[in-house]
């Protein structure tokens, strides 16, 4: 008890020095808290965007993840309606799942006959309403800065969107009225000798438009791919708009279409399959559990299916986490070293100034361990005071930053997320910072405290 009282009063005895030490620790705390809060917010934004785009888990045929990109159709999930039903009816999975939706990957060549342009494309076929629901996920509570307006609907089975880069290449910018997008030079200007391209002879099934009465007036492109059976096949995609992609390579290739159109392209008249089942959970923390349950289910049903989570599907995600973790760790270490040196210096000066006092209390009968305890207590009290103050200041500053209402767009993403420093509501960061600083402060006073404890009474007294 008295030890703490003496420690407390000694801190206020040399106000100037204590204030400077306090300031150093507070600055350390604030830097760690604000940056930690910023990193947390970045990672939350990144996770949210990732989960909104690709869900938490995807189910594939065994081997698709490794080799499927070469020939997606060959790794189709047969009778996927049954698999969907199995998952949907599983008592353990049901409460965890927010969206369960089939998806199909398609690769091929996209062409615009009218403009005589073409290029390879990477296409995703999906159910539009499910995709919209996935974009509303907010499991980390970051809020919705941009709810996508998806220019697709479940009824519009021939409609879709393409990347801005692809629109540019295929000369659809003008037709689609895309801002900041000018159509490329026509093929005839670049290399006039090439023969005109036309996929129309390759169409395996009749396009539905030919049977209907109304003619679709939307801009359109043709998609050419090989069916699972190996025959070339073409479908027409009616363009509803563009969707800009974060990475140029993707933007130049990107095609998003209705699941039905993708299936018509890839499977023709054969059985319509999908390449993946996308699962979005309510909470990211359920990923491991849901994955285990899915594997159990597939094994029990003898299904040759594999489950991957979003960190495997998007390795970039873990790389970003590792990078920010390293930066944060670096900053924390620097701050820690500064705090360490400041406290060691302050406590050493305190020991030096109070040498005669140490001699006195030792003569009065305090053991060496009591002297050590006295100075450790002082470091501890100093740590508690400054860490607490640092937490308050950090919280206050984070509040101000968050009120500014800034947004930013994470790398390779198109959708801005709020720029926030998540300090309040980040108990791990707060507790880690507080206990870390208090422990560091106490630890830093260990050296001076031991020095004080080792003093010989007579030598210490002569310092008077």
């Amino acid at each position: 008890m008295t030890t703490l009282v003496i420690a407390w009063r000694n801190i206020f005895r040399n106000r100037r020095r204590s204030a400077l030490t306090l300031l150093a620790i507070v600055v350390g705390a604030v830097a760690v808290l604000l940056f930690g809060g910023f990193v947390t917010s970045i990672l939350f934004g990144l996770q949210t965007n990732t989960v909104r785009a690709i869900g938490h888990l995807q189910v594939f045929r065994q081997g698709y993840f490794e080799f499927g990109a070469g020939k997606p159709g060959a790794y189709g999930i047969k009778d996927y309606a049954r698999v969907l039903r199995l998952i949907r009816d599983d008592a353990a999975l049901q409460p965890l799942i927010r969206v369960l939706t089939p998806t199909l990957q398609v690769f091929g060549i996209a062409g615009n006959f009218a403009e005589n342009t073409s290029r390879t494309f990477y296409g995703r076929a999906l159910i539009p309403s499910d995709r919209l629901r996935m974009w509303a996920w907010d499991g980390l509570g970051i809020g919705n800065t941009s709810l996508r307006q998806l220019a697709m609907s479940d009824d519009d089975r021939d409609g879709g969107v393409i990347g801005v880069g692809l629109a540019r290449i295929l000369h659809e910018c003008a037709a689609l009225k895309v801002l900041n997008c000018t159509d490329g030079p026509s093929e005839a200007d670049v290399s006039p000798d090439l023969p005109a391209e036309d996929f129309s002879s390759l169409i395996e099934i009749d396009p539905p438009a030919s049977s209907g009465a109304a003619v679709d007036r939307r801009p359109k492109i043709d998609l050419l791919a090989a069916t699972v059976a190996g025959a070339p096949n073409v479908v027409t995609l009616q363009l509803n708009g563009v969707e800009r992609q974060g990475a140029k390579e993707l933007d130049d290739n990107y095609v998003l279409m209705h699941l039905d159109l993708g299936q018509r392209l890839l499977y023709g008249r054969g059985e319509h399959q999908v390449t993946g089942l996308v699962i979005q959970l309510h909470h990211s923390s359920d990923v491991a559990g849901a994955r285990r349950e899915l594997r159990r289910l597939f094994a029990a049903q003898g299904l040759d299916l594999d489950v991957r989570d979003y960190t495997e599907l998007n390795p970039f995600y873990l790389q970003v986490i590792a990078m920010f973790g390293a930066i944060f760790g670096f900053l924390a270490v620097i701050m820690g070293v500064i705090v360490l040196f400041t406290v060691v210096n302050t406590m050493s000066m305190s020991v030096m100034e109070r040498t005669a006092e140490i001699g006195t209390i030792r003569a009065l009968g305090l053991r060496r361990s009591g002297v050590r305890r006295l100075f450790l207590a002082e470091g501890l009290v100093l740590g508690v005071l400054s860490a607490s103050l640092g937490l308050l200041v950090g919280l206050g500053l984070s509040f101000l930053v968050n009120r500014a209402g800034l947004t930013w767009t994470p790398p390779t993403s198109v959708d801005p997320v709020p720029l926030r420093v998540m300090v309040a509501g980040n108990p791990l960061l707060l507790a880690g910072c507080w206990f870390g600083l208090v422990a560091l402060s106490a630890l830093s006073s260990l050296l001076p405290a031991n020095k004080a404890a080792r003093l010989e009474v007579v030598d210490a007294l002569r310092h008077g």
Partner: protein
Amino acid sequence: MTRTSSLPPPGDIVVRLRDVSKTYLLGAVAVPGLHELSLEIGRATFSVIVGPSGSGKTTLLNLIGGIDRPSAGTVEVAGQDLGGLGDDRRSDFRARNIGFIFQSFNLIPVLSAYENVEYPLLLTRVAAAERRRRVMALLDAVGIGDQSRRRPNQMSGGQRQRVAIARALVKDPVLVLADEPTANLDSRTGAQIIALMHAMQTRCRTSFVVSSHDPQVMEQADETFTIRDGALIDRHCRATS
């Protein structure tokens, strides 16, 4: 004053030094502090150690107080051979049995007069009510009762030394050691402090060993030990004067 030849009876001895030497090492040079010094101090006496500067007074008091170890010989206080105690046990022994009064008062600056006097009782874990009773009684006895809340820097030198006397006596020690307690005080205040120490010594029936150059101090002595060059050269007993 006459030279005494008879020693006090052994049961009444509080301090017994036998052939105590203390050699300080200054680098490679050995500086003699005390040389084969033997003496005995009786229970409940007021003893004064006199001697010129550098004669070894402080060294002697440090050895008696158990805050320094002799290079040779034995130091016994209240029947306990201090040489046989480890560091912690010696600290505990001091906490229970020995009071210190210093030349520069050495109060703990962040503690009030009351808390300074209370401090030794916290070291020996005396119960709160008993602490309060003893501290107040002693503060009143040394004439500081009305200033118990003051910090040392709000008090004069004389007042501080009064607090220090109360602090030394509060644990009811068998022995109080005071190294030149009046050296930092003007002579009038010094005289008051010496009178107070003597009064308290009689009242508490404890032994005081005081080193001093001050003739006022020597007047109070039951016994006076004169040392020079680390050796006891004279011992006077007032009772026989």
